[in-house]
Every structure is written in C-alpha cells, then in structure tokens.
C-alpha cells in the first residue's frame, strides 16, 4: 500500500502527516515524530463540518488541521480503507492466494466445523430430508429445552458433523467452464427432434453468448419460448456460434438470420483492434493506443514483401466459412478462461524453486527408491512363538503316549461302557437340547427382522430407543472428558427413559397386543443394561470423589 504524505498542523504547529500502516506526524524541521501510533489503535474519526480538520481518536484525541478539504478527505479515506483491511490478521497475510476474498472461493469449499454448526439452513435441510433424524431431534433437543438434562442443538449436531459436511460440500461445489452449445444435441424421438434445455443451460448460454440474450429479448415477446429455442437450435446463427461452417444447404430463418449480420460485428471490432495492435483480443477490454507497439513489432512478418500471411492471420478478411468458425471458437475459449480463477502465483521465495523444477529433466531422473520402515522381527517372533517353547517339547514327548492310546483302542468296545449311569445320560441330553433350541434360527441378512407390534407403537418404541441412545452418547462424551456435571445432567434424562418405557408398555397393554409387554421389555433390554452400566460407572467415580 502506498504511503500518503500530507502537510498538517497539530496544536498550531506545522508538520507532515505520513500514513503507512502507522500514522506518524512529524513537526517541520524536527527529526523526531511527535505522535506515532498504529492504525489499529484508531477508534474513531471525526471530521469538522466547516473547517478542513480531522479529529482522530485513539487513547487520546488528536486534532489535525489541513490546508485544504481535499487533503483532509484523502487522509480520512486512506485511514478508513486501511482500517477495514487490517482486521484480518495473520491468516490473510500468510496465504498468498488472492482467492480467499472472492465469493466463489474454492478454499472455503471444505467448511470447518464452526461454520457447519452455525449454519441453520443446512441443518434444517438435513432434518427435512430424513424424518427419523427429525424425530430424534424433536425428542432430544426440543423436548429437553429448558430442563437440566438439556442437549443443545450444537451438541446434537457436533456428533453428526460428517453428515453436515457432506451436505454442505455437495451444495457448494460448482462445475468448471464448458462450451455450452456443443452439449446441446437434439435427439430424434418419434420422428421429432427434441432438445432438453434446463434453466441452468439457458443461463449458461446467455452468459457465454450475449448475442443470444439480445436476440431473445428482441424475439420472445412476439414468439413463444419453445418456438424460439426450437428455431434457434436449428438455425444458422447457432451453427455460427458453435464455430461450425455455414453451408448453403442450411435452413434459413428470416427472424434469426438478421442477427447473423449482428454477430459479425464483434468480429469486426476485434479485427480493428488487431490492426491497431492491441494485445488483449477480448471484445470487452478497452483498446489502448500505443506509441510504439513492441509486441506488434515482434510478431510482424513483413506483409509488403514475400508471402501474404495465412488466411487465418489476415485481420481484414471477414467472417466467412472456416475463419469465422475459428474466431468464434477462440472467443468461446477466451470467455471460459476469463471466468476461471487465476492460477495461483507463488511468492517470490519460491520462484527459484519454480524455475529449477521447470528446467530439470525429471524423466531422466530414474525411479525414486521408496522409503520403507523395516520391522525387526525374527521368524519365530512373527509366528508368536517364544524361545524355549515348552509346549512343543511336550509335543515331542507325547509320541509314546499317543501310541499307547492307540493300542488301547484296539479290540471290541461297547458303547454302554462310555456312560456310567442313565441319569447323567438324560441330563446331558436335556442340556444339549436346550442349547440347540436356544440358538436363534439362522436368518438371512437381507430380511430385516421386525417385532410383532402395530406400526405406530413400533415407531414410538424405535424413537424412544434412539433418544435413549442419544442421551447415552452425550453422557459418555461428557464422562470420558471428565465433565461430570454434564454427565450427571444426562443421567437425569436417562432416568426418564424408564418412565417412557413404562408408558409404552401401558399403551401396548391397552391396545391388546398379545405378549406385547414382553416384546417391549425385551427390545429395550439391551439399552437398559447400558443405562444401568452408565449409572454404575458414574456413581463409582462421583462417589469415590466425594
């Protein structure tokens, strides 16, 4: 930022006010400045309505008198401008990219957690999309609002940050520039040519070819939109904009062909500019007349003698056939590139590195050896065997024992010898049977098992289960963080789950579902155990402390 230097008076003394990122006033003739403070210290600026004076408030007010109102205004503007820019601290200075200030910035594509937690619209969107989540939210956040065991919205979403992040990303990304007209392809359906033009495509067409917008605004009030687009897609104008050659056989369209001539005007303009040697060929940039055109001199092939330049290099040749196509394609490409983010320029310190990278012949370098971390493990350790494994020694010695056993098996044997008495036989029989029957039948993973309850009771059951799990999650989060106060508050909420289950059991009893109570109690048993464990742990720790 440039320094602003202006003569000013402070306390009736003449001096100079120098503004860099600090405000320094030096009286004339003296080397030492009398007041010197950083701009961040400036709290307020007051301008005098009549006289050219400016009062700058920091810890104490300073009244500067200027020679003219213009000077005072300059200083005031400069100070306010710089103050607006300084609040972004080191982060702005550190990142060399200029893109952090643009609204379609890519660096903000990955939102950080704080942003996500504050984004109410996104959260509402997610809740609307998933009714189960909404139910849980209602139960856990809204119903507990104001009570001791309150779970705040922030706490609720802090365990679901990945959901928020993915939803935010999906909505924020946008696609790169592309040539819109080339993607419009009419499809033959039932002897009719049909073209799908969603609104985004129409907007993109208007952006890339402003001519079409002019045509549209001129034609559409009398003609309907559908008719306009169907005629446009088939017309010569569209072909020209795409960069294709216009042949004699193309159908002519009296309305749209008028604009063919109009379309050629931007070409003429750019052609004229090329003659005057302007480096930038965009039809929007203003032409700067040059005293001596060095760029033009470099590219100057002597036209007066020797061969005439190629058909595409003649600036005066009008937009006929191939040349016009090339021009419109170039124009489209330039427009797409203009809309893109600028390539990240590296800072000066990296420039040497950058040039070195570009010069070095990377392909000749050969394969880079991959660094690996070797594990120092011997074969035996790898197989979990320690030295002098006594188990294996026993194995060797057991050879004679096994041969003995084998000998013992020879000869006839009767099964009756295996069982000492019939009582133990029946006992074994019953115990094996109960084990087998108590095993659940093998279920395939595709069919989700359901409980025999009517749907509304089932949904209440699921919801209370989900709410209890949510409370448990927050309890453990707080407990493991050693935040026993919040943990205790969660327990209050958990204690109420018992009441909820009782209410549900009553409702089931009223509905007359057979065995309903057993089903409900059984279903909630898993989570009840977890609640009991949580209470136990909490009391163990809190009881030990007190």
């Amino acid at each position, binding site marked *: 930022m440039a320094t602003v230097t202006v003569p000013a008076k402070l306390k009736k003394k003449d001096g100079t006010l120098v503004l860099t990122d600090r405000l320094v006033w030096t009286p004339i003739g003296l080397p030492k400045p009398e007041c010197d403070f950083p701009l961040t210290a400036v709290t307020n600026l007051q301008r005098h309505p009549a006289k050219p004076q400016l009062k700058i408030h920091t810890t104490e007010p300073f009244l500067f008198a200027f020679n003219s109102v213009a000077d005072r205004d300059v200083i005031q503007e400069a100070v306010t401008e710089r103050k607006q820019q300084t609040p972004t601290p080191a982060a702005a200075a550190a990142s060399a990219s200029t893109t952090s200030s643009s609204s379609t910035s*890519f660096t903000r*594509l*990955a939102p950080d957690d704080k942003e996500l937690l504050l984004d109410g619209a996104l959260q509402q969107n997610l809740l609307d999309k998933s009714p189960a989540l909404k139910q849980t939210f209602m139960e856990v956040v809204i119903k507990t609002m104001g009570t001791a065991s309150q779970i705040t919205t922030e706490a609720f979403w802090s365990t679901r940050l990945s959901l928020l992040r993915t939803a935010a990303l999906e909505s924020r990304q*946008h696609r*790169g520039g592309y040539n819109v007209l080339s993607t419009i392809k009419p499809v033959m359906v039932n002897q009719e040519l049909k073209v799908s033009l969603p609104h985004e495509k129409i907007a993109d067409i208007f952006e890339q070819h402003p001519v079409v917008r002019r045509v549209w605004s001129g034609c559409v009030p009398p003609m309907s939109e559908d008719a306009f687009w169907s005629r446009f897609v088939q017309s010569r104008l569209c072909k020209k904009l795409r960069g294709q050659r216009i042949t004699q056989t193309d159908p002519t369209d009296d309305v749209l062909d008028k604009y063919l001539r109009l379309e050629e005007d931007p070409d003429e303009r750019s052609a004229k500019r090329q003659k005057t040697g302007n480096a930038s060929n965009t039809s929007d940039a203003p032409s700067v007349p040059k005293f001596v055109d060095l760029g033009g001199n470099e590219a100057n092939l002597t036209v007066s003698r020797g061969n005439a330049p190629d058909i595409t290099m003649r600036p005066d040749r009008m937009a006929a056939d191939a040349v016009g196509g090339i021009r419109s394609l170039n124009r489209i490409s330039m427009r797409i590139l203009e809309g893109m983010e600028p390539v990240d320029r590296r800072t000066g310190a990296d420039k040497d590195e950058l040039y070195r990278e570009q010069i070095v012949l990377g392909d000749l370098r050969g*394969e880079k050896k991959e660094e690996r971390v070797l594990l120092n493990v011997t074969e035996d350790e790898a197989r979990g065997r320690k030295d002098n494994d006594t188990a*294996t020694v026993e194995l060797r010695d057991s050879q004679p024992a096994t041969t003995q056993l084998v000998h013992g098996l020879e000869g006839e044997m009767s099964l009756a010898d295996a069982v000492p008495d019939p009582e133990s036989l029946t006992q074994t029989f019953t115990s094996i049977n109960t084990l087998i029957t108590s095993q659940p039948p093998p279920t395939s993973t595709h069919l989700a098992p359901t409980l025999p309850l009517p749907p509304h009771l089932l949904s209440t059951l699921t919801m209370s*289960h989900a709410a209890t799990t949510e409370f*448990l999650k927050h309890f453990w989060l707080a407990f493991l963080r050693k935040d026993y106060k919040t943990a205790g508050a969660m327990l209050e909420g958990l204690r109420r789950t018992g009441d909820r289950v009782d209410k549900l059991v009553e409702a089931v009893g009223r509905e007359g579902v057979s065995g309903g109570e057993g*089903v409900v109690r059984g279903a909630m048993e898993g989570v009840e155990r977890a609640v009991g464990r949580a209470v136990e742990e909490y009391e163990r720790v809190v009881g030990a402390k007190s």
Partner: protein
Amino acid sequence: MSDDEYNFGDSAAEDDEDILDLGNDSRGKKSAAAPGYAWEEQYQRSWDVVQEDAAGSLAGVVAGIIEAGKRKRLLKDTTPIQRGIIRHLILVLDFSSAMAEKDLRPNRQELTITYACDFITEYFEQNPISQLGIIGMRNGVAVRISEVHGNPQDHIAALQALRKQEPSGDPSLQNALEMCRASLQHVPTHGTREVLIVFGALLSSDPGDIHKTIRNLVQDKIRVRIVGLAAQVAVCAELCRATNGGSNSAYGVILNEHHFRDLLFEATTPPTQTTKKAASTLITMGFPSRAIESVPSLCACHSIPLRTGYSCPRCSSKVCSLPMECPTCGLTLVLSTHLARSYHHLFPLRNWDEVPWDKASKSTSCFACLAPFLTTPITSGKEKGRGSSGRFACPQCGNHFCVDCDVFAHEHLHNCPGCESSSPARKQKLLAAEPENGATTNGDAMQID
C-alpha cells in the same frame, strides 16, 4: 492360429535381423541358442508354442501354459515392512460420458461397477478394521454414493443401484478430490488416508486450479492411486507422483480386463508407511464376546431387533456386528480374528525357492498334498514348465511342495504347512542333517504298529 489377424507376422518373420524380439517380457525364456542382441533373434510367434501332441489334443500344452502362469503372480517382495493397517480409503469412480465406451464388455461403467463390488468384498476381507467411502464424478461435479463406514453390504447395495444410470458429462478431478479431503479430514493420525480413482476420461473439467488442490492433498498426507482406463493423462501422473512422494507406481493404465482387475486389487494390500513415527501411539480397542438372548432386543447402532449381539466392554451397549465403532462411547470394537487377518500383510510368508534337479531326489511327493513328483526331467524341449523339477522348497523347513500348494499357501493360507508342523528342535535336526544325509525327510507318516 488364424493368420488373418497376424498378417504382418508371416512376412516379417523372414527377415529376422530387423525384427525386435517382442516376446521377451511376456513369453518367458529367451532362446538360449542364439547369442548376441535381442533383435537378431527370430521373432517369437505365440501361436507356434501351441502344438498338438500325438493324439491331436491340446490339453497337455494348455496345462503346461497354465502351470507356467501360476507362479508368476507370487514373486513379490516379502520383507516385513511397517504398513498402515487401519485404512480409510475413498473410492472415486468416473461416471462421465467416456465411460459409455464399449471397449470393455459390456461397457466401461458396467465392468467398473462389477469390479468395484469385488474390490469392496476383497478390501474388507483383507483389511477388516478399515473403512471405505465411495464418490462418483458426473456432470462436472462430485456425487456422494456412500458414506465412509465399515459395512460392505451397504456399499455394494449403493453401487448396484447405480447400474441403471447412464454416464454423462465430464469428470472433475478437483471437485472429487476436495470432497475426499473433507471426508478424510477427521481421520486420526494412526489411520491411513487414501484415495483410489478409476479414471476413464482423458480430461478433467475443473472450476479452479488443480495444482492448489494437489498441494493441499500433500499437506493433508492423503495418498492417491489412479487406475486409468484409456491412456496416460499428465495431470493424473503428477497427482500420483506428488502425493506418493515421487514414486511412479501409484498410477497404472490398463491393458485389458484382467490387468484392470489386477491393478484395482493391488490397492487391497495395505500401503507401506514411509515415515517413521516418533513414538508409537497406543490405540484403545474393545474385544466383545457374543451373547445370545431369548427375546430379541434392539441394537444400539441400527435399532434392529436381534437375539444375538456383542456388548461393548466399556458401556455395555449392544451392537449387531463387528467390526464396529460403539455408537454410545466411541470405542473401536473388533474380534481378534479381524486383527489376525491383517497380520499376514505385516509378516508375509517367504517365497519358496524352486528346487533344481540335482537336489530333487530328496522327495518323491509333495509334503502337503502327497501329489507325486516327476522323478526324471522330460527332455522333449518344446513343452514349457516341464524343464523345472516341479518342486518348491521352503527356506525355513526345507520341505518340498508342488506348485498348487505353493499358490494355495501364498495366496490363501499364508502359512507354510512344513514350518507349522515341525517343532524348533526338529527343525534344527533337519538343517543339521541336510548335508550328509540324502534320505527322504518328506512325507513321513506317523508310525503305528
């Protein structure tokens, strides 16, 4: 042997000096008879190898070719290296208009989805404590197909649902990579962050500067692997090189369907750890045991009523399947078998050496499956694979195995049957007895009298 396809081959074979020996890499042995340069040899025609035997059948020759091909896959580096076992991988699939090409049957998208489902199954088998997420590139934006979690069924179901969608638009590497970055943001340091891209197009239509994204990826320590379906794309090569520390092996372009499958499945092995961590971190894990109840109860993770479940050792809440992160206290719950499955990546089974004919008399049959070996070499030269004795010896226990057991032990078992069945004392005896005693130590049955 249809000559129509190889028209050039016939006339070219006459002038042998000019033809490069293209057969060297893929066809095995160089002809030992011709000295000098490779291009001075005769052009090896692949169809000449196949010759009918006396009865007019090709079965023997085909079997020989299969045998020769079997062992090729096995010879990889088996030094124990530190690898990332707890992996977080994002699979990025290309659904742009280039995937409608029919150079892979039935079309690229169909085959990619099929292979991706197989990949997911294999990935969770090889890395049971890892997680996977899927993202698609379509119409210039990235689409989330499946969240990052550890349940293979969900992922496969989500992929199958995409078969009906037509591929369209252009792929955008930058959008996909930014989405991966955001998903992998909260992975703890002991887990790996990887991205595997299946890229079928030759362009990438991005809204910003992709090099900035590449720099961000390097900063976040995310490693990207790419499988290209069409041709090598410079920006993909740069992406892989930058994120893998200068190595060129992360980017592969397919030659055919089998190669596609091989390249894809290369990503199932855990990546090597390139930097030594300052201090090893300890990770808390829970090992729950299975409980069976008489009345079904709801599991805490999905609210599904089940009679079986595992209860978390810290908070006693019930989960339906493992491995899983406990939904209430966040503890990683695994079975010890899951950890054991990743074990063989860290300590791979050593490659077995081929036994030359002079040592081959030590054994008459395979130690593991008792299949008989050839006792004398076959001298009719053209049959490939018969020049070797067919025996492969484990460097530890010295037992001989056949090629089928070799493949089975290295691909599925990850243990040597000889080493497991011998005690250390016996091993010492074996190694000591080796030079003087030529008697068979293989295939001894237990003496029962």
